[in-house]
């Protein structure tokens, strides 16, 4: 396999980002930037999928590439999830931004560069490329949250995320410095080997590890580092929220898994530092708090924000199990993130389609009776929330099944029980969406939400809906690919 094919997705992101910048600056009339962008991202994802299916790493990669970035099936698998999420978000943006009079080319440029950062992050095998990837990804997202710049809410969310994110990045960087001080290496494999051989300065390594885990837990919005999430998700334009909740989260989990399993995967550091125990604690807090807080929300966007926090908790259950049983649990995490990506994109896409200009659906009440008035617009929402809830035969069901199954196999039965109970609590607020849409009638003087008509949004909904059903009907194929990726990650 050619080296160029392996790095083509990254190059494509970069070149199309620069290209769209120029088009945006010079184009006189409205260009179909959303179409170009989403196709570019989808092609990048398709190339990665092809490389993933074909398997086998190219032998002739130059050292300048292999030193900082991996090109293993693990990275390509995450490319697929990141690109799927980003491409769907861009399609949603194509409809949403135009409908709400926010159409500006910057959005697509930001998504492309942020997606580039996310893909770097999924490939990072060195603390340096980790940090550069993380910041490249985050800077685009900060700007995307404040995209509706006249809205005080959007600016508030962006400022919160920016300040807290900078703080978390500083903690991560300090942790990286301590890891380097303790081991003399910045690459994950080198750090892992030094720890395994017992030559590392243990105290420095442990404190460094703690800070790195805090920095990453912030990015995946694990409780208690989640404070920014509801405000940022609510303030951002919905397509930006979609991108943050799927692609950014997937990339952050990619590097989380890599750091934990490759750099800190040694038995000695696990038992001494207890990162599996620490992450199990975070997972329990995240699952319970995310689900309980989602129940009391009135705004659907905020509910979905808390729901995405809860989902980060389920993924962390898989990470804890990976510490014990390795590859099977990692493959469950991979599958879960892919399933979550398409399900969440579907749910947010349904929220986008529910509102036309000035008549956006924000609260549960706005959805009253929509199911009877506009059944075709309500159907994707039903599939989306059922999949997020984990209802068979959707993607979400198998995601949850594999993750909790991995936890049971690893001997963390209590963790699986907490997870199942938490997701049972979650069923309440997911089903409430369906109940409101189909079994309630709007009040007399209520402003009715009118679904928007947009080919972009319809395409996004059809694509994500099909992906949700495909992952739910035949999960085996994707799971096999995920298992292979997980095996090669552990070497």
């Amino acid at each position: 396999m050619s080296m160029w094919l392996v790095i083509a997705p990254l190059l494509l992101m970069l070149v199309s980002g620069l290209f769209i910048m120029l088009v945006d600056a010079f184009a006189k009339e409205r260009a179909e930037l959303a179409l170009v962008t989403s196709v570019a991202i989808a092609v990048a994802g398709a190339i990665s999928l092809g490389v993933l299916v074909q398997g086998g790493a190219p032998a002739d990669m130059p050292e300048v590439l292999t030193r900082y970035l991996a090109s293993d099936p693990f990275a390509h698998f995450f490319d697929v999830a990141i690109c799927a999420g980003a491409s769907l978000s861009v399609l949603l943006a194509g409809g949403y931004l135009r409908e709400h009079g926010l159409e500006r080319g910057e959005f697509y440029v930001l998504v492309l560069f942020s997606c580039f950062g996310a893909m770097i992050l999924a490939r990072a095998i060195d603390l340096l490329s980790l940090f550069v990837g993380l910041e490249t990804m985050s800077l685009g997202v900060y700007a995307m949250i404040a995209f509706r710049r006249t809205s005080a809410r959007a600016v508030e969310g962006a400022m919160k995320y920016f300040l807290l994110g900078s703080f978390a990045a500083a903690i991560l960087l300090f942790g990286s410095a301590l890891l380097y001080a303790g081991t003399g290496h910045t690459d994950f494999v080198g750090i892992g080997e030094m720890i395994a051989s017992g030559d590392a300065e243990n105290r420095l390594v442990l404190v460094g590890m703690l800070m790195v885990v805090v920095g990453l837990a912030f990015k995946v919005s694990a409780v208690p580092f989640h404070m920014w999430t509801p405000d940022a998700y609510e303030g951002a334009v919905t397509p930006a929220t979609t991108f943050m909740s799927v692609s950014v989260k997937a990339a952050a989990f990619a590097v989380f898994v890599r750091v934990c399993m490759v750099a800190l995967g040694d038995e000695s550091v696990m038992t001494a530092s207890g990162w599996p125990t620490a992450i199990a604690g975070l997972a329990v807090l995240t699952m319970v708090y995310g689900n309980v807080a989602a129940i009391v929300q009135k705004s659907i966007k905020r509910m979905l924000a808390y729901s995405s926090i809860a989902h980060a908790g389920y993924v962390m259950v898989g990470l804890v199990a990976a510490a014990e049983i390795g590859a099977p649990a990692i493959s469950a995490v991979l599958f879960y993130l892919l399933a979550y990506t398409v399900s969440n994109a579907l749910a947010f896409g349904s929220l986008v389609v529910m509102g036309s200009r000035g008549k956006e659906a924000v609260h549960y009440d706005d959805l009253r009776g929509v199911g009877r008035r506009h059944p075709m617009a309500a159907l994707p929402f039903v599939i989306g929330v059922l999949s997020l809830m984990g209802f068979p035969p959707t993607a979400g069901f198998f995601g949850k099944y594999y993750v909790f199954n991995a936890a049971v196999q690893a001997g963390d039965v209590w963790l699986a029980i907490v997870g199942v109970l938490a997701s049972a609590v979650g069923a309440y607020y997911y089903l409430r969406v369906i109940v409101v849409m189909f079994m309630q009638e709007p009040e007399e003087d209520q402003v009715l939400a009118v679904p928007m008509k947009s080919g972009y949004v319809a395409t996004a909904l059809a694509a994500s809906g099909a992906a949700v059903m495909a992952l739910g009907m035949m999960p085996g194929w994707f799971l096999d690919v995920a298992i292979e990726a997980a095996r090669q990650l552990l070497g």
Partner: protein
Amino acid sequence: MFPVYLPVLILLIVASAVALGMFTATSLAGPKKPTPEKMLPYESGSNTTGASHLRMSVKFYLTAILFVVFDIEAVFLYPWASLFRELGWFGFVEMLLFLTILGVTLVYAWKKGALEWEK
């Protein structure tokens, strides 16, 4: 449970205790003789004029950001220039790529009117 973290905890406690102790001690034990002049906000010795929460025009930030970008470029170019022969074609192409990306962003900023002070 994990005694290795005990030193960190102790350091945390000592650091907070020292910081808190210093602030408490100065506010309790320090002499306080406030005069009207002392209570004024300090502004390099001259009298304060206008409100302190002044809104700066966003134009300053744009200029500052552009300055930083090209400053970084200069920082990157110097070591590259001194190692030019050793880096060979690889270094040349690498720098060319970097400058191209920077060039595109400059064109973008220019077209979008970021370089015009009065619009």
